[in-house]
Protein backbone atom coordinates (compact mmCIF):
# COMPACT_ATOMS: atom_id res chain seq x y z
CA UNK A 1 0.00 0.00 0.00
CA UNK A 2 2.79 2.43 0.91
CA UNK A 3 5.35 1.38 -1.69
CA UNK A 4 4.26 4.04 -4.19
CA UNK A 5 4.67 6.72 -1.53
CA UNK A 6 8.18 5.60 -0.61
CA UNK A 7 9.12 5.48 -4.30
CA UNK A 8 7.71 8.97 -4.82
CA UNK A 9 9.55 10.23 -1.71
CA UNK A 10 12.85 8.90 -3.09
CA UNK A 11 12.06 10.41 -6.50
CA UNK A 12 11.28 13.78 -4.90
CA UNK A 13 14.48 13.64 -2.85
CA UNK A 14 16.45 12.85 -6.02
CA UNK A 15 14.85 15.79 -7.82
CA UNK A 16 15.78 18.12 -4.94
CA UNK A 17 19.33 16.83 -5.03
CA UNK A 18 19.63 17.35 -8.80
CA UNK A 19 18.05 20.78 -8.41
CA UNK A 20 20.63 21.64 -5.77
CA UNK A 21 23.48 20.51 -8.05
CA UNK A 22 21.99 22.44 -10.94
CA UNK A 23 21.73 25.65 -8.98
CA UNK A 24 25.22 25.18 -7.56
CA UNK A 25 24.04 25.49 -3.98
CA UNK A 26 25.18 28.75 -2.55
CA UNK A 27 27.29 27.61 0.36
CA UNK A 28 30.66 28.62 -1.07
CA UNK A 29 33.73 28.04 1.10
CA UNK A 30 34.42 31.09 3.17
CA UNK A 31 38.08 31.94 3.80
CA UNK A 32 39.08 31.51 7.44
CA UNK A 33 39.03 34.78 9.32
CA UNK A 34 39.73 35.25 13.06
CA UNK A 35 36.74 36.68 14.93
CA UNK A 36 36.77 38.58 18.23
CA UNK A 37 33.88 38.66 20.71
CA UNK A 38 33.30 42.13 22.16
CA UNK A 39 31.31 43.42 25.11
CA UNK A 40 30.36 46.82 26.41
CA UNK A 41 32.61 47.99 29.26
CA UNK A 42 29.69 47.58 31.72
CA UNK A 43 29.83 43.78 31.36
CA UNK A 44 31.77 42.20 34.19
CA UNK A 45 32.88 39.07 32.30
CA UNK A 46 36.31 38.24 30.85
CA UNK A 47 35.82 34.67 29.60
CA UNK A 48 32.89 32.67 28.23
CA UNK A 49 32.90 28.99 27.32
CA UNK A 50 31.71 28.10 23.77
CA UNK A 51 28.54 26.59 25.32
CA UNK A 52 27.84 29.79 27.29
CA UNK A 53 28.41 31.90 24.17
CA UNK A 54 25.90 29.71 22.32
CA UNK A 55 23.31 30.11 25.11
CA UNK A 56 23.65 33.92 24.82
CA UNK A 57 23.54 34.14 21.01
CA UNK A 58 20.68 31.61 20.86
CA UNK A 59 18.63 33.87 23.16
CA UNK A 60 18.37 31.21 25.86
CA UNK A 61 20.22 33.34 28.43
CA UNK A 62 18.84 36.87 28.54
CA UNK A 63 20.54 38.31 31.66
CA UNK A 64 24.13 38.74 32.86
CA UNK A 65 24.90 37.26 36.31
CA UNK A 66 24.43 40.73 37.92
CA UNK A 67 20.80 40.83 36.64
CA UNK A 68 21.33 43.35 33.83
CA UNK A 69 19.89 42.60 30.35
CA UNK A 70 22.09 41.04 27.71
CA UNK A 71 21.83 43.01 24.44
CA UNK A 72 22.99 40.89 21.53
CA UNK A 73 24.03 42.43 18.20
CA UNK A 74 24.89 40.53 15.02
CA UNK A 75 25.91 41.31 11.44
CA UNK A 76 23.53 40.40 8.56
CA UNK A 77 23.07 36.61 8.17
CA UNK A 78 24.65 36.58 4.68
CA UNK A 79 27.86 38.34 5.79
CA UNK A 80 31.05 36.26 5.82
CA UNK A 81 31.75 37.34 9.42
CA UNK A 82 28.37 36.07 10.65
CA UNK A 83 28.79 32.79 8.77
CA UNK A 84 32.27 32.32 10.27
CA UNK A 85 31.11 33.28 13.76
CA UNK A 86 28.26 30.74 13.67
CA UNK A 87 30.37 27.91 12.28
CA UNK A 88 33.58 28.37 14.25
CA UNK A 89 32.64 30.00 17.54
CA UNK A 90 29.07 28.74 18.05
CA UNK A 91 29.60 25.44 16.20
CA UNK A 92 26.23 25.82 14.52
CA UNK A 93 24.96 26.52 10.99
CA UNK A 94 23.48 30.01 10.52
CA UNK A 95 20.07 28.54 9.58
CA UNK A 96 20.00 26.56 12.84
CA UNK A 97 20.58 29.79 14.78
CA UNK A 98 17.78 31.52 12.88
CA UNK A 99 15.44 28.60 13.65
CA UNK A 100 16.23 28.95 17.36
CA UNK A 101 15.63 32.74 17.28
CA UNK A 102 12.23 32.30 15.67
CA UNK A 103 11.29 29.75 18.29
CA UNK A 104 12.37 32.11 21.08
CA UNK A 105 10.58 35.17 19.70
CA UNK A 106 7.33 33.54 18.58
CA UNK A 107 6.80 31.46 21.69
CA UNK A 108 7.18 34.40 24.08
CA UNK A 109 10.58 33.38 25.42
CA UNK A 110 12.63 36.50 24.68
CA UNK A 111 14.15 38.68 22.01
CA UNK A 112 16.20 37.79 18.95
CA UNK A 113 19.53 39.60 18.47
CA UNK A 114 19.41 42.94 16.67
CA UNK A 115 20.99 42.92 13.20
CA UNK A 116 23.37 45.78 12.39
CA UNK A 117 24.39 46.42 8.78
CA UNK A 118 28.13 47.12 9.04
CA UNK A 119 31.08 46.26 11.30
CA UNK A 120 31.60 49.96 12.09
CA UNK A 121 27.97 50.41 13.13
CA UNK A 122 28.14 47.24 15.22
CA UNK A 123 31.23 48.48 17.07
CA UNK A 124 29.56 51.84 17.71
CA UNK A 125 26.35 50.32 19.07
CA UNK A 126 28.21 47.94 21.41
CA UNK A 127 30.16 50.94 22.74
CA UNK A 128 26.91 52.85 23.38
CA UNK A 129 24.74 50.06 24.82
CA UNK A 130 25.20 48.83 28.40
CA UNK A 131 25.11 45.03 28.56
CA UNK A 132 25.89 44.69 24.84
CA UNK A 133 27.74 41.78 23.23
CA UNK A 134 28.70 41.20 19.59
CA UNK A 135 31.54 40.09 17.34
CA UNK A 136 33.86 41.61 14.74
CA UNK A 137 36.64 40.40 12.44
CA UNK A 138 40.05 40.81 14.01
CA UNK A 139 41.96 43.06 14.55
CA UNK A 140 39.58 45.19 16.65
CA UNK A 141 40.37 48.71 17.82
CA UNK A 142 39.20 48.71 21.44
CA UNK A 143 38.54 51.85 23.46
CA UNK A 144 37.23 52.87 26.86
CA UNK A 145 33.75 51.58 26.07
CA UNK A 146 34.59 48.21 24.49
CA UNK A 147 36.48 45.10 25.60
CA UNK A 148 37.43 41.91 23.81
CA UNK A 149 36.66 38.77 25.84
CA UNK A 150 38.16 35.31 25.59
CA UNK A 151 36.12 32.36 24.34
CA UNK A 152 37.32 29.05 25.76
CA UNK A 153 36.89 26.63 28.62
CA UNK A 154 37.69 28.28 32.00
CA UNK A 155 41.07 27.25 33.45
Amino acid sequence: MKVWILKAFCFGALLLWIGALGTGTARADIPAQPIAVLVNQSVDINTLSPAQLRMIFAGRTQFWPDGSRIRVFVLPPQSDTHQQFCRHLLNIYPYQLERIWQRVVYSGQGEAPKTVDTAQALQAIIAQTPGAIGYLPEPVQTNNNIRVITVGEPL
Partner: protein
Amino acid sequence: MKLCAFSFGAILLLLSGYTRANHDNFSWHGFIAQGLTSSTDSNYITTGNEITTELTEIGINGSYVINPSLSVSGQFVYLDGGNRFRQGVRLDYLFLDWRLTRLFDWQVNVHLGRYKNRHWWYSATQDVPHTRPSISLPQSIYYDGNRDLALSSDGIALQSTKTSSSGTWEVRWSYGRSPLAKEDTKKLLSPQAQGRVKQDFTHQFSTYWQPDSMQWQLGFSLLQSEFTYEPAARDILLNGQSGIDRLTLAARYDSENWELTMELLRDRLMYEGDFTQGITLDVDKTGEGGYLQWRYFLQNNLTGLVRFDTYDVDRKDRHGEQLAFNSFGAIPEHYGYMDTLTFGLSWDIKSNLRLSGEFSRTHGAGRLTAVVFPDALVYAKPYWNAWSVQLMYWF
Protein backbone atom coordinates in the same frame (compact mmCIF):
# COMPACT_ATOMS: atom_id res chain seq x y z
CA MET B 1 -15.10 38.60 10.94
CA LYS B 2 -12.56 38.21 8.16
CA LEU B 3 -12.94 41.88 7.22
CA CYS B 4 -12.22 42.89 10.83
CA ALA B 5 -9.19 40.61 10.86
CA PHE B 6 -7.89 42.15 7.62
CA SER B 7 -8.41 45.67 8.99
CA PHE B 8 -6.49 44.67 12.09
CA GLY B 9 -3.80 43.15 9.86
CA ALA B 10 -3.55 46.40 7.85
CA ILE B 11 -3.06 48.37 11.08
CA LEU B 12 -0.38 45.88 12.12
CA LEU B 13 1.37 46.37 8.77
CA LEU B 14 1.38 50.14 9.28
CA LEU B 15 2.67 49.81 12.82
CA SER B 16 5.26 47.18 12.00
CA GLY B 17 7.69 49.92 10.94
CA TYR B 18 7.80 51.07 14.54
CA THR B 19 8.57 47.69 16.08
CA ARG B 20 12.28 48.34 16.16
CA ALA B 21 11.67 51.19 18.53
CA ASN B 22 10.96 48.78 21.35
CA HIS B 23 10.80 50.06 24.84
CA ASP B 24 13.66 48.52 26.84
CA ASN B 25 11.40 46.09 28.65
CA PHE B 26 8.58 45.69 26.15
CA SER B 27 8.77 44.08 22.75
CA TRP B 28 6.18 42.99 20.26
CA HIS B 29 6.11 41.05 17.03
CA GLY B 30 3.53 39.82 14.57
CA PHE B 31 2.78 38.05 11.34
CA ILE B 32 0.28 38.24 8.49
CA ALA B 33 -0.17 35.41 6.00
CA GLN B 34 -2.69 35.02 3.19
CA GLY B 35 -2.99 32.29 0.64
CA LEU B 36 -5.00 30.30 -1.86
CA THR B 37 -5.85 26.69 -1.17
CA SER B 38 -7.94 23.76 -2.29
CA SER B 39 -8.51 20.08 -1.73
CA THR B 40 -9.86 17.92 -4.55
CA ASP B 41 -11.85 14.71 -4.02
CA SER B 42 -11.90 15.49 -0.30
CA ASN B 43 -13.47 18.04 2.05
CA TYR B 44 -10.28 18.31 4.08
CA ILE B 45 -9.76 22.01 3.20
CA THR B 46 -12.57 22.97 0.85
CA THR B 47 -15.93 21.49 -0.08
CA GLY B 48 -16.72 20.60 -3.70
CA ASN B 49 -13.14 21.02 -5.02
CA GLU B 50 -13.45 24.82 -4.89
CA ILE B 51 -10.43 27.11 -4.65
CA THR B 52 -10.61 29.46 -1.70
CA THR B 53 -8.80 32.34 0.00
CA GLU B 54 -9.61 30.76 3.38
CA LEU B 55 -5.95 30.53 4.30
CA THR B 56 -5.47 33.53 6.57
CA GLU B 57 -3.30 33.76 9.66
CA ILE B 58 -2.80 37.02 11.52
CA GLY B 59 -1.10 37.22 14.90
CA ILE B 60 0.42 39.64 17.34
CA ASN B 61 2.51 38.81 20.37
CA GLY B 62 4.14 40.84 23.11
CA SER B 63 6.49 40.36 26.04
CA TYR B 64 7.03 42.59 29.04
CA VAL B 65 10.05 42.06 31.30
CA ILE B 66 9.02 42.98 34.85
CA ASN B 67 12.42 42.19 36.41
CA PRO B 68 15.31 39.73 35.80
CA SER B 69 13.17 36.91 37.22
CA LEU B 70 9.74 37.67 35.80
CA SER B 71 8.15 38.51 32.49
CA VAL B 72 4.72 38.22 30.86
CA SER B 73 4.12 37.02 27.29
CA GLY B 74 1.00 36.58 25.20
CA GLN B 75 -0.29 36.16 21.66
CA PHE B 76 -3.60 36.67 19.86
CA VAL B 77 -4.23 34.93 16.55
CA TYR B 78 -6.94 35.14 13.91
CA LEU B 79 -7.18 31.95 11.94
CA ASP B 80 -9.12 30.92 8.85
CA GLY B 81 -8.13 27.58 7.38
CA GLY B 82 -11.21 26.47 5.47
CA ASN B 83 -12.61 23.24 6.92
CA ARG B 84 -9.39 22.57 8.82
CA PHE B 85 -9.96 24.89 11.80
CA ARG B 86 -12.61 26.79 13.66
CA GLN B 87 -12.55 30.24 12.07
CA GLY B 88 -11.95 33.10 14.50
CA VAL B 89 -9.76 34.76 17.10
CA ARG B 90 -7.88 32.85 19.79
CA LEU B 91 -5.71 33.73 22.75
CA ASP B 92 -2.95 31.27 21.89
CA TYR B 93 -0.93 31.89 25.03
CA LEU B 94 -0.63 34.27 27.98
CA PHE B 95 1.72 33.26 30.75
CA LEU B 96 3.97 34.51 33.51
CA ASP B 97 7.55 33.40 32.86
CA TRP B 98 9.45 32.92 36.12
CA ARG B 99 13.21 32.37 35.69
CA LEU B 100 14.40 30.30 38.62
CA THR B 101 18.11 30.41 37.77
CA ARG B 102 20.44 33.05 36.42
CA LEU B 103 23.26 30.74 35.42
CA PHE B 104 24.77 30.84 31.96
CA ASP B 105 24.91 27.08 31.73
CA TRP B 106 21.56 26.18 33.21
CA GLN B 107 18.24 27.92 32.69
CA VAL B 108 15.12 26.85 34.55
CA ASN B 109 11.79 28.55 33.76
CA VAL B 110 8.33 28.08 35.21
CA HIS B 111 5.36 29.19 33.07
CA LEU B 112 2.08 29.95 34.81
CA GLY B 113 -1.14 30.68 32.92
CA ARG B 114 -1.95 29.64 29.34
CA TYR B 115 1.40 28.05 28.56
CA LYS B 116 2.55 26.78 25.20
CA ASN B 117 3.08 23.11 24.49
CA ARG B 118 6.80 22.76 23.69
CA HIS B 119 6.94 18.99 23.67
CA TRP B 120 7.11 18.26 19.91
CA TRP B 121 9.43 19.66 17.19
CA TYR B 122 7.05 22.28 15.84
CA SER B 123 4.53 22.63 18.67
CA ALA B 124 6.10 25.75 20.24
CA THR B 125 5.44 27.80 17.09
CA GLN B 126 3.00 25.70 15.08
CA ASP B 127 0.66 28.72 15.04
CA VAL B 128 3.25 30.94 13.28
CA PRO B 129 3.30 30.39 9.48
CA HIS B 130 6.92 31.28 8.69
CA THR B 131 8.33 29.06 11.46
CA ARG B 132 6.68 25.93 10.02
CA PRO B 133 8.49 23.86 7.41
CA SER B 134 5.32 23.78 5.26
CA ILE B 135 1.91 25.45 5.14
CA SER B 136 0.24 22.34 6.61
CA LEU B 137 2.06 20.29 9.22
CA PRO B 138 2.19 16.47 9.02
CA GLN B 139 -1.20 15.25 10.20
CA SER B 140 0.04 12.12 11.96
CA ILE B 141 1.49 14.27 14.77
CA TYR B 142 0.01 17.76 14.23
CA TYR B 143 -3.59 16.71 13.55
CA ASP B 144 -5.51 19.88 12.54
CA GLY B 145 -8.66 18.83 14.41
CA ASN B 146 -6.57 18.84 17.56
CA ARG B 147 -4.87 22.19 16.95
CA ASP B 148 -6.23 24.26 19.84
CA LEU B 149 -6.03 21.35 22.25
CA ALA B 150 -2.40 20.64 21.39
CA LEU B 151 -1.12 24.21 21.14
CA SER B 152 -1.57 25.48 24.68
CA SER B 153 -3.19 24.66 28.03
CA ASP B 154 -4.11 26.51 31.20
CA GLY B 155 -1.86 25.43 34.07
CA ILE B 156 1.81 25.15 34.86
CA ALA B 157 4.87 24.23 32.77
CA LEU B 158 8.48 23.76 33.70
CA GLN B 159 11.42 23.98 31.33
CA SER B 160 15.09 23.31 32.00
CA THR B 161 17.98 23.83 29.54
CA LYS B 162 21.42 22.66 30.63
CA THR B 163 24.43 23.15 28.40
CA SER B 164 28.02 21.99 28.70
CA SER B 165 30.97 21.10 26.49
CA SER B 166 29.33 17.72 25.80
CA GLY B 167 26.01 19.13 24.57
CA THR B 168 22.63 20.63 25.44
CA TRP B 169 19.98 18.81 27.38
CA GLU B 170 16.39 20.06 27.60
CA VAL B 171 13.70 18.76 29.95
CA ARG B 172 10.08 19.95 29.86
CA TRP B 173 7.11 19.09 32.01
CA SER B 174 3.58 20.50 32.02
CA TYR B 175 0.21 19.96 33.66
CA GLY B 176 -2.97 21.77 32.70
CA ARG B 177 -6.21 21.66 30.74
CA SER B 178 -7.45 23.26 27.52
CA PRO B 179 -10.86 24.88 27.11
CA LEU B 180 -12.68 23.28 24.18
CA ALA B 181 -15.11 24.97 21.82
CA LYS B 182 -18.28 23.11 20.81
CA GLU B 183 -16.84 22.51 17.33
CA ASP B 184 -13.83 20.82 18.93
CA THR B 185 -16.21 18.33 20.56
CA LYS B 186 -17.54 17.31 17.14
CA LYS B 187 -14.02 16.91 15.74
CA LEU B 188 -12.80 14.96 18.73
CA LEU B 189 -15.81 12.78 19.52
CA SER B 190 -18.37 12.68 16.74
CA PRO B 191 -20.25 15.12 14.49
CA GLN B 192 -23.42 13.62 16.06
CA ALA B 193 -22.51 14.72 19.61
CA GLN B 194 -24.72 17.54 20.91
CA GLY B 195 -23.03 18.09 24.28
CA ARG B 196 -19.54 19.26 25.24
CA VAL B 197 -16.26 17.47 25.87
CA LYS B 198 -14.24 18.84 28.77
CA GLN B 199 -10.60 18.09 29.19
CA ASP B 200 -9.96 17.05 32.79
CA PHE B 201 -6.20 17.36 32.49
CA THR B 202 -3.25 16.94 30.15
CA HIS B 203 0.04 15.84 31.63
CA GLN B 204 3.16 15.98 29.45
CA PHE B 205 6.86 15.33 29.71
CA SER B 206 9.60 15.53 27.11
CA THR B 207 13.35 15.54 26.93
CA TYR B 208 15.74 16.33 24.08
CA TRP B 209 19.48 15.90 23.75
CA GLN B 210 21.78 17.68 21.33
CA PRO B 211 25.49 16.78 21.34
CA ASP B 212 28.04 19.58 21.09
CA SER B 213 28.51 18.92 17.36
CA MET B 214 24.92 20.37 17.17
CA GLN B 215 24.09 18.26 14.11
CA TRP B 216 21.94 15.65 15.83
CA GLN B 217 19.02 16.19 18.13
CA LEU B 218 17.15 13.30 19.67
CA GLY B 219 14.26 13.15 22.10
CA PHE B 220 10.97 11.69 23.20
CA SER B 221 7.72 12.94 24.73
CA LEU B 222 4.94 11.41 26.80
CA LEU B 223 1.38 12.62 27.10
CA GLN B 224 -1.51 11.51 29.26
CA SER B 225 -4.88 13.20 29.06
CA GLU B 226 -8.46 12.54 30.22
CA PHE B 227 -11.77 13.91 28.96
CA THR B 228 -15.34 13.84 30.25
CA TYR B 229 -18.43 14.18 28.07
CA GLU B 230 -21.26 16.39 29.29
CA PRO B 231 -24.38 15.51 27.25
CA ALA B 232 -26.96 17.97 25.99
CA ALA B 233 -30.63 17.63 27.01
CA ARG B 234 -31.39 15.70 23.79
CA ASP B 235 -28.36 13.67 22.82
CA ILE B 236 -27.41 10.26 21.46
CA LEU B 237 -24.54 10.07 23.96
CA LEU B 238 -25.61 9.88 27.61
CA ASN B 239 -22.18 10.02 29.20
CA GLY B 240 -18.58 9.25 28.41
CA GLN B 241 -15.09 9.17 29.79
CA SER B 242 -12.00 8.96 27.62
CA GLY B 243 -8.27 8.85 28.04
CA ILE B 244 -5.33 9.28 25.66
CA ASP B 245 -1.77 8.04 26.20
CA ARG B 246 0.75 9.22 23.64
CA LEU B 247 4.41 8.52 23.03
CA THR B 248 6.49 10.31 20.41
CA LEU B 249 10.08 9.72 19.38
CA ALA B 250 11.91 12.49 17.55
CA ALA B 251 15.17 12.82 15.65
CA ARG B 252 16.68 15.53 13.49
CA TYR B 253 19.89 15.78 11.52
CA ASP B 254 21.14 19.16 10.32
CA SER B 255 23.63 19.26 7.50
CA GLU B 256 25.22 22.18 5.66
CA ASN B 257 22.66 22.07 2.86
CA TRP B 258 19.83 19.93 4.11
CA GLU B 259 17.83 18.91 7.17
CA LEU B 260 16.22 15.55 7.88
CA THR B 261 13.45 15.45 10.48
CA MET B 262 11.48 12.52 11.84
CA GLU B 263 8.81 12.06 14.50
CA LEU B 264 7.10 8.78 15.31
CA LEU B 265 3.96 8.41 17.37
CA ARG B 266 1.93 5.82 19.21
CA ASP B 267 -1.49 6.91 20.52
CA ARG B 268 -3.62 4.76 22.79
CA LEU B 269 -7.22 5.87 22.97
CA MET B 270 -9.67 4.56 25.54
CA TYR B 271 -13.35 5.43 25.73
CA GLU B 272 -16.22 4.21 27.87
CA GLY B 273 -19.70 5.56 27.51
CA ASP B 274 -23.42 4.92 27.20
CA PHE B 275 -25.60 5.63 24.21
CA THR B 276 -29.35 5.92 24.16
CA GLN B 277 -31.28 2.61 23.80
CA GLY B 278 -28.99 0.95 26.37
CA ILE B 279 -25.95 0.55 24.09
CA THR B 280 -22.64 0.67 25.92
CA LEU B 281 -19.43 1.42 24.12
CA ASP B 282 -15.97 0.42 25.26
CA VAL B 283 -13.19 1.49 22.87
CA ASP B 284 -9.52 0.70 23.38
CA LYS B 285 -7.38 1.14 20.27
CA THR B 286 -3.84 2.14 19.51
CA GLY B 287 -2.92 4.24 16.50
CA GLU B 288 0.57 4.53 15.05
CA GLY B 289 2.19 6.92 12.65
CA GLY B 290 4.90 9.41 11.95
CA TYR B 291 6.66 11.34 9.23
CA LEU B 292 10.01 11.63 7.54
CA GLN B 293 10.78 15.05 6.14
CA TRP B 294 13.68 16.23 4.03
CA ARG B 295 14.34 19.92 3.42
CA TYR B 296 17.04 20.97 1.00
CA PHE B 297 18.42 24.53 0.94
CA LEU B 298 18.63 24.90 -2.82
CA GLN B 299 19.83 28.50 -2.54
CA ASN B 300 20.22 30.93 0.37
CA ASN B 301 16.61 31.97 -0.14
CA LEU B 302 15.08 28.86 -1.72
CA THR B 303 14.15 25.69 0.18
CA GLY B 304 12.64 22.48 -1.17
CA LEU B 305 10.69 19.96 0.89
CA VAL B 306 9.70 16.32 0.46
CA ARG B 307 7.74 14.60 3.23
CA PHE B 308 6.17 11.21 3.73
CA ASP B 309 3.56 11.14 6.49
CA THR B 310 1.64 8.05 7.58
CA TYR B 311 -0.97 7.23 10.21
CA ASP B 312 -2.93 4.04 10.99
CA VAL B 313 -5.95 4.64 13.21
CA ASP B 314 -5.75 1.14 14.74
CA ARG B 315 -2.50 -0.82 14.66
CA LYS B 316 -4.51 -4.06 14.70
CA ASP B 317 -6.49 -2.93 11.66
CA ARG B 318 -3.96 -1.14 9.45
CA HIS B 319 -5.99 -1.58 6.25
CA GLY B 320 -9.32 -0.56 7.80
CA GLU B 321 -10.99 -3.89 6.99
CA GLN B 322 -12.35 -4.35 10.53
CA LEU B 323 -13.56 -0.75 10.55
CA ALA B 324 -15.62 -1.35 7.41
CA PHE B 325 -16.85 -4.73 8.66
CA ASN B 326 -17.98 -3.41 12.07
CA SER B 327 -19.93 -0.56 10.49
CA PHE B 328 -21.57 -2.91 7.92
CA GLY B 329 -19.74 -0.98 5.19
CA ALA B 330 -21.03 2.44 6.30
CA ILE B 331 -17.45 3.55 6.93
CA PRO B 332 -15.15 2.65 4.02
CA GLU B 333 -11.82 0.95 4.64
CA HIS B 334 -9.77 4.00 3.67
CA TYR B 335 -10.95 5.81 6.84
CA GLY B 336 -8.68 3.47 8.79
CA TYR B 337 -5.40 4.97 7.56
CA MET B 338 -3.89 8.04 5.89
CA ASP B 339 -0.63 8.25 3.93
CA THR B 340 0.43 11.59 2.50
CA LEU B 341 3.27 12.62 0.27
CA THR B 342 4.03 16.37 0.19
CA PHE B 343 6.24 18.44 -2.10
CA GLY B 344 6.92 22.06 -1.14
CA LEU B 345 8.96 25.06 -2.15
CA SER B 346 9.65 28.22 -0.11
CA TRP B 347 11.14 31.41 -1.51
CA ASP B 348 12.39 34.08 0.91
CA ILE B 349 11.76 37.21 -1.14
CA LYS B 350 13.10 39.39 1.69
CA SER B 351 14.33 38.65 5.20
CA ASN B 352 10.74 38.99 6.47
CA LEU B 353 8.68 38.06 3.40
CA ARG B 354 8.21 34.50 2.12
CA LEU B 355 6.18 32.83 -0.61
CA SER B 356 5.49 29.14 -0.01
CA GLY B 357 3.72 26.59 -2.13
CA GLU B 358 2.99 22.91 -1.64
CA PHE B 359 1.17 19.99 -3.18
CA SER B 360 0.19 16.79 -1.44
CA ARG B 361 -1.28 13.48 -2.58
CA THR B 362 -3.03 11.40 0.05
CA HIS B 363 -4.22 7.83 0.23
CA GLY B 364 -6.83 7.36 2.96
CA ALA B 365 -8.77 9.61 5.31
CA GLY B 366 -7.84 8.35 8.79
CA ARG B 367 -7.11 11.86 10.09
CA LEU B 368 -10.25 13.41 8.60
CA THR B 369 -12.58 11.61 10.96
CA ALA B 370 -13.50 12.29 14.56
CA VAL B 371 -10.92 10.74 16.85
CA VAL B 372 -13.16 8.58 19.03
CA PHE B 373 -15.96 7.52 16.68
CA PRO B 374 -14.75 7.37 13.09
CA ASP B 375 -17.44 8.79 10.93
CA ALA B 376 -17.41 9.08 7.17
CA LEU B 377 -19.24 12.41 7.25
CA VAL B 378 -16.04 14.23 6.23
CA TYR B 379 -16.07 13.29 2.58
CA ALA B 380 -12.93 11.89 0.96
CA LYS B 381 -12.25 9.49 -1.89
CA PRO B 382 -9.55 6.87 -1.28
CA TYR B 383 -7.03 9.04 -3.18
CA TRP B 384 -7.21 12.81 -2.98
CA ASN B 385 -5.02 15.91 -3.47
CA ALA B 386 -4.49 19.24 -1.75
CA TRP B 387 -2.46 22.31 -2.64
CA SER B 388 -1.75 25.69 -1.07
CA VAL B 389 0.15 28.87 -1.89
CA GLN B 390 0.73 31.38 0.89
CA LEU B 391 2.48 34.74 1.20
CA MET B 392 3.84 35.40 4.70
CA TYR B 393 5.07 38.64 6.25
CA TRP B 394 6.44 38.93 9.74
CA PHE B 395 8.04 41.56 11.96
